[in-house]
């Protein structure tokens, strides 16, 4: 039987790797996810064959957990996907922490080779839990999403981290008599998770979620070292690596280093030392906008999170269909950090049945921007802010943006002149070729659709 279990774990690891590989291509992604789920099922069934397990409590846990997970997965809105992934992440981190704790509880006479991963599983798992829950709260705007800064913050965080390391060393040196220290370490890890996420602004949450995703994998790998189980190590490490890569991609898309994202308290102050914005924003009515669009041959749509909040993705697609029927070529330009997690905008547009061939990445659309007759910006702000290109004093200077200002005419659909998630002024609104279409994004798009239909 133990041999069968080991072989099953190898099979599970292979399926995880294959699944991840297939998940990386549009055509095979769904199959990849299924294959990885089969791998998980094999790992679970194989574990249940371990001799001497009592099943009654296992079944209780599996039933409750499956019910919660299934209901949550069915009910969640696509706009709330970042919050959901954050919570699932937190659950995984907590599970790894608990595995570390219970292993210690049952076998307190640990060798150093088990004590070190126990410390790591508890530390990383605890940080993942509270960090993810706080990221969830910030994304759902249950707490203030702006960075929270207080005096001596970095020193306090560094001090706390050193304290964790100190207690970690004490714990690893004498695990047997260190139960109180283990409990203290759990609390310190919780505190560390909160304190590291609290200075990070809402606009940087895509990076935080990717990083926490990586942590949840590393916590699982640490748990694998405790129970000497290779499938935990392999799977946890794969997730850890993928999370780090996504973190890097996100940072690159914002032209910031990971240390800048984590420690700079970006967007905490709204005072921009940059060039003062001059000029006046020019408003336009849907009727006049229609005449411009009616004559356009090349149209690019730039959706931002504001589109998702207004639930305007369906009416946006309706407008795109009408434009196409009118003979225009329509593309959607997607910024890598559009939405609130990596790739979020693509999911939202897919929900509205936008074919993925029409979605163009930033680097592909920018060289063609000058040939576009009209660019329509729907609820996007910072990702089309030319200050990133032109104003060295701007906090987002250097961040790659979608250069909509190079298009013939730019329509900006916006509720008011308020600044975006990052709290930065946008000179795009004052450019000569920009027209503001004020109002709720969905209502404005609806008005355009009506204009098209009634003509």
């Amino acid at each position, binding site marked *: 039987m133990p041999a069968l279990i080991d072989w099953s774990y190898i099979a599970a690891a292979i399926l995880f790797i294959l*699944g*991840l590989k297939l998940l990386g291509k*549009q055509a095979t992604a*769904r199959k990849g*996810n*299924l294959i*990885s*789920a089969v791998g*998980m099922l094999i790992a*679970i069934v194989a*574990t*249940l064959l*371990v001799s*001497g397990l009592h099943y009654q*409590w*296992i079944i209780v*846990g*599996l039933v409750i*957990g499956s019910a*919660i*997970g*299934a209901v*949550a*997965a*069915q009910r969640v809105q696509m706009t709330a*996907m970042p919050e959901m*992934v954050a919570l699932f992440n937190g659950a*995984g981190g*907590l*599970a*790894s922490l*608990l595995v570390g704790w*219970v*292993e210690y509880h*049952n076998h307190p006479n640990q060798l150093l080779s088990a004590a070190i991963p126990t410390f790591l599983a508890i530390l990383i798992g605890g940080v993942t839990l509270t960090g993810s829950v706080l990221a969830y709260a910030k994304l759902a705007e249950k707490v203030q999403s702006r960075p929270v800064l207080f005096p001596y913050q970095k020193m306090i965080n560094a001090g706390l981290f050193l304290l964790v390391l100190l207690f970690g060393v004490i714990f690893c040196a004498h695990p047997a008599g260190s139960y109180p220290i283990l409990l203290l370490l759990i609390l310190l890890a919780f505190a560390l998770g909160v304190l590291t996420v609290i200075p990070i602004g809402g606009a940087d949450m895509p990076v935080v*979620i990717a990083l926490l*995703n990586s942590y*949840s994998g590393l916590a*699982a790998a640490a748990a*694998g070292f405790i*129970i000497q189980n*290779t499938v*935990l*190590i392999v799977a*946890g*490490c*794969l997730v*850890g*690596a*993928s999370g780090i*890569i996504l973190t890097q*991609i996100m940072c690159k898309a914002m032209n910031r280093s990971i240390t800048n994202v984590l420690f700079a308290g970006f967007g905490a102050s709204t005072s921009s030392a940059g060039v003062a914005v001059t000029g006046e924003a020019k408003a336009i009515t849907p009727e006049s906008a229609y005449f411009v669009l009616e004559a356009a041959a090349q149209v690019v749509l730039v959706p931002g999170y504001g589109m998702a909040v207004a639930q305007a993705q369906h009416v946006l697609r309706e407008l795109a269909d009408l434009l196409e029927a009118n003979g225009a070529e329509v593309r959607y330009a997607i910024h890598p950090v559009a939405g609130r997690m*990596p790739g979020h905008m*693509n*999911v939202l547009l*897919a929900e509205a049945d936008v*074919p*993925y*061939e029409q*979605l163009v990445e930033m680097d592909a659309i920018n060289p063609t921007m000058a040939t576009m007759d009209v660019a329509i910006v729907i609820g996007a702000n910072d990702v089309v802010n030319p200050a990133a290109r032109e104003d060295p004093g701007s906090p987002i200077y250097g961040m790659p943006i979608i250069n909509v200002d190079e298009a013939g005419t730019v329509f900006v659909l916006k509720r008011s002149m308020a600044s975006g998630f990052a709290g930065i002024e946008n000179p795009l609104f004052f450019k000569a070729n920009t027209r503001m279409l004020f109002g709720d994004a969905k209502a404005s798009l609806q008005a355009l659709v009506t204009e098209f239909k009634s003509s």
Partner: protein
Amino acid sequence: MILLIFIFILSAFLGFELIAKVPSQLHTPLMSGSNAISGITIVGALIAAGTEGGPVGTTLGVLAVIFATVNVVGGYLVTDRMLAMFKGKKK
């Protein structure tokens, strides 16, 4: 122990290779899908919940199973729900 560290390092390299070339439109499903894989800690949780460890040990074990299962079941289902929506142009 050394062997486990060896496996860990090789898996890290494998992970970097697997993910580095994924197009950005798949990043959200990739993240939630890999998130579900991190629920593999359920293997440790099942063993913990099924081992005789007194009331405290069993309680912690069952909680671990619950949270790991939420991560696994929720993660895979929500990823599938997202991927089901990705469609190409119908001709």
